[in-house]
Structures are given as C-alpha cells and as structure tokens.
C-alpha cells in the first residue's frame, strides 16, 4: 500500500528543469531513501511535497488526497512533517516550548484562541513534550533556549518537533548532516526504533551512504531532476546508471 504517490511532477526554475516527470511512490510504514548528487532536485521534491513549491505539472497524493494547492500548515495537519536541510527550530524558546508548540498544533489544529490555559502547564501536552525530549535525548536541556544547541542537537530537536505531532509521513532532508559519527549512529537507532514502534513512514534524503544503507528498505536515485533508478539497496548499489550519475558529478 503506498501512502505517497507522486506522478509526472515537473518543476522548472527559469530554464532549469529541477524536476522532470518524476514518479515516486512510498509504501506505508517503510523507510524510503532518496539519494542523488548535489543539485539533483532532492530538496526541490521535498519542497513540492510540503507545499513550499507549486509544481508546474503532475500530481501529488498523500493517503489518496491531493496535496497540490494546499498550504504548508494544512499539509502538516494531514500528517506530513519535515526536517529541513538547515535545522529549523525556535531559537528564542526553550526546548520544552519548541516541542510543546507541536503538541498544541496536534491537539488544537491550525488555530485556536484560548486565554484560560497556561502554555507551560497544560498537562498532557507538556508531559508528551517531555517524553519526546527524552526520546531524542535532549531532556536534560529542556529549559535551555534552543539557540544554545549545537547543529546536531538542533537537528534532533527539530526531529522532536516533528515527532510530537505524530506524523504519518516524516520527510528528513539530510538528518545527520553536521553530526559527529556517534551522533549519527544514535540518530540511526532513533529513527529505526521509531519506525519499528510506530510504523511511521519516512522519506530520507541523505548523502551519507552508511545511513542510507543502514535504514532504507527502498532507495530512489535522483539525478538532474529525473529518477534514474529505484529498488532495494543491493540492486541500486550495483546499478551502473547510478555509478555514472555520481561519477559524472565528480568529473565536473
């Protein structure tokens, strides 16, 4: 059963075809990696999925519903969350508040005006936020402001923000970039655990092949805006077209 169905999506920037007739389908509950050389269009594809960019053509369906024309927050409320390539957190707020925001978004939807509750003490939301912080390993710093975190920690916090919303599809744009080796391994374990426990579907964009091969059930290879290969990790590894795409880049 596929939960995400992208078909014939095109996106041009001026003359550049960043995405060209891209077909991409993700099975529910699976971990699906999207790889490709720099500038291949991976982030662009994620941008189309979350409503940041409007494709020039094609369709994007999540759980049978079209995502095209929907606002980013509506798409998120449908259950699609994203970790950005450059970590996006709320630097001026505490870690607990960072996560609580997502908790409120989950509980109250896109908008709610309510004066009679105190943000810091609303029990279920705060407790859940603490649980999530525990999960991503940041609970000890819960009262620190996010600005003080290292890049790797920010990324984990952002992951936590996404998780607090319990998304059905989690898009991760280079989740381990800027992390030390042991942090990367913790993150791999974390993602694997979440996937095993919640059956959350994940799409991971990654340059670090050790992460890709450790996690993915399926890999799609994007090069110059086209999907050039797709399949199980072993198959993709041996595919000559994939080698060419990467080597071609190195020769430049």
């Amino acid at each position: 059963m596929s939960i995400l169905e992208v078909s014939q999506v095109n996106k041009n920037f001026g003359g550049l075809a960043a995405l060209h007739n891209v077909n991409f389908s993700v099975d529910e509950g699976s971990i699906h990696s999207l790889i490709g050389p720099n500038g291949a269009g991976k982030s662009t594809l994620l941008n189309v999925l979350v409503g940041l960019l409007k494709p020039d053509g094609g369709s994007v369906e999540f759980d049978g519903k079209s995502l095209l024309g929907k606002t980013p927050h509506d798409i998120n409320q449908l259950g699609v969350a994203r970790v950005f390539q450059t970590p996006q957190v709320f630097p001026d707020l505490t870690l607990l508040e960072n996560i609580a925001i997502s908790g409120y978004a989950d509980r109250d939807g896109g908008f709610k005006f309510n004066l009679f509750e105190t943000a810091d003490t609303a029990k279920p939301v705060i407790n859940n936020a603490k649980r999530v912080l525990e999960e991503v390993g940041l609970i000890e710093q819960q009262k620190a402001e996010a600005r003080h975190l290292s890049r790797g920690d920010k990324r984990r916090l952002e992951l936590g923000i996404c998780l607090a919303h319990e998304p059905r599809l989690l898009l991760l744009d280079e989740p381990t970039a800027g992390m030390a080796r042991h942090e990367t391994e913790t993150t791999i374990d974390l993602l694997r655990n979440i996937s095993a426990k919640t059956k959350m579907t994940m799409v991971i964009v990654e340059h670090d092949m050790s992460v890709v091969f450790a996690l993915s059930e399926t890999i799609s290879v994007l090069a110059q805006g086209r999907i050039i290969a797709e399949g199980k990790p072993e198959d993709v590894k041996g595919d000559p077209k994939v080698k060419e795409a990467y080597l071609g880049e190195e020769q430049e």
Partner: protein
Amino acid sequence: MSSSDIKAAYDPSASGRRVGSDFKRKDLTTLAVFALITFTMPLWFPLIGGYSGLDTKILIWAIFAVGFDLLLGYTGYLSFGHAAFFGISAYITGLMLLHVSDNIIPAMIASLIVTLIMALIIGLLTLKRTGIYFSILTLAFGEMFHSLAVSTLQDWTGGDNGLTGVPTPMLFGLKMQNLTMFYFVAVLAIIMFYIARRIGRSPFGLMMKAIKSNQTRLEYTGINVLRYKLSAFVISAIYAGLAGSLMVIYEPYVASEFLSWQESGRVVIMTVMGGVGTLVGPMFGAFFMLYFENVVSVLLQEQWLLVLGLMFMAIVIFLPGGFADGAKRLWNRVSRQGDN
C-alpha cells in the same frame, strides 16, 4: 552534557517562565500589586510633581502600550501605523458623542467595532509578507488615514482643527470627569493588563512568540501563521482603539494629530524604552514618557523631544531590553552582591 554546561546554556535573564502550580497565585499577586499602584495613583502622583488628569492620560497610554507590546514584543511585528486605530476610534467616539448620544457605552462599542474591521483589512494587506514590509506599509496606512481626516473627510472630522464641540461624556447619568474618569480608566487598565498577561502565557501567546522566533518552522508545524498574526494584530489594534476612545472621553475633543505618525512613534518609543515583550515594561514606558513630556520637560523646554530621541537611540543601541531589562540586570547584580 554535564550539568554545569546545562546551567550555562540556560540563560536566566530570559527566563521568567514558571512551570508549576504556584503560577495562579503569582499571576494574581502581580495583578494585585499593579492594581494597588494604579488605584493609589491620585495619592502619590502629585507628590512627584504630576498634576491631576495626567494620571488618567498615563493609564490610557499604558493600555495602548500594553496592547502594542502584544504585537511587537510577542510576534516581533513593528507597526508604525497604530495611530490609525487610536485615531479612528477617537473620531468614532467623538462623532457618536456629538451626533448620537452622550452616553459613552454606544460610542465605545461603535469605536471598537470599526477598529476591528479596519484592523482586519489593514492586517490582511500588510501581514502576508515580512516584517520590514509590514513596518513600511503600516506607516503608509497610518498617514493615509491622517490625510483622509484632514482633507477628504474634513466636513466630518473638522479637518486640521480637529473635532470640537463634543459634549461631556456620560455613563448613565454619571459625568465622566476627574476622579470618576480616572477610576473608570484604572479599572479598564487593570482588566486589559490582565487579559494581556493571560494572552501572553496561553498557548496563543506561545504561538506569537514562535512567530517572532521562526515563522517557517511554525508554518511547517501545522500552524496557520497568518491567522495568528492577524489575530495578534487585531487584538493590539483593539487595545489602541480602546485607548483612543478613552482619550476622547477623558478630554472631549479629537485632535487630527491622533492619527499622525508621531502618535504611532510615541507608542513605539514607550514600548521599546519600557522593555519589549514584558508587558509591564511598556506600561512603565508610557508612564515615563508622559511624565517626561509633562513634568520633566519644564526643565528642558522645547528640547525634551530631542533628549527623549537621544535616550531612545541609546536604549535601542545599548539596552535593547529596555528599562525592564535594565532593572532586571541591576537586580541580579544587587542580589548577587547580597549573596557574597
């Protein structure tokens, strides 16, 4: 991370947040202190050179400033056109008192409704893009209403001379003057302060702070950012509108300057000098500015605004947290010395 690292990472000056059940009591204590200071103002204010009536005016501006802080301090949007709401509401109040009834209730209600509608329209036109854009456009809209009042609509507004001949405002047979007016405003100021505090600490307030911190993340966390921004803008406009309406009840005359950029600038200066995002700070800022303008200015004569401008710049440059931050730093230093 060791526990000392964590302490270092936790910036105490930015705290003020409390988790726990002592919150309600603390909230009420603050309110009680604020109420006490406010209600006793007619007693202590003359002692420091204030004249009667100025206290009422200070509280009116404090309402304006605390509402402005909800927008600037929480969402980070800097409006240079809040005089529009202050002034429009003032004109509606004046016109209602003049042409409909000298009872203030219908006048105030009508003013607030018009303010709300105006805020929705202006907000939709200005809030979709970045904060810079917003600052410029609100300034322009403010000036538009000023121009409207002094030219296009001058048959209604009295043009440059302002709206005169407004009868003494009444509240069901009670003349809204002197102490009656003062206590009326004081009660409203306390209520509005309390509401602002509630907003600030509610999940709604958290979303507003998140807007200031990172709008992109917020939008991709499932929050309808525009609606929050618009609501915050409308709420702060209502505060401005209430202040404008009260100003006309306090002094039954509408000056066309109520709509000018200087008026918008005043509330900006008060809020920033008092301490953005602290709610109490801007109210103190209002007190400081009006006290400065009316009492201290005797020493400085015409140059008080120049001195104020220099002080304002100095605060923006060296103490962006305003008086509130300065007081906090001072307090920290004093209490640290006490520990030793």
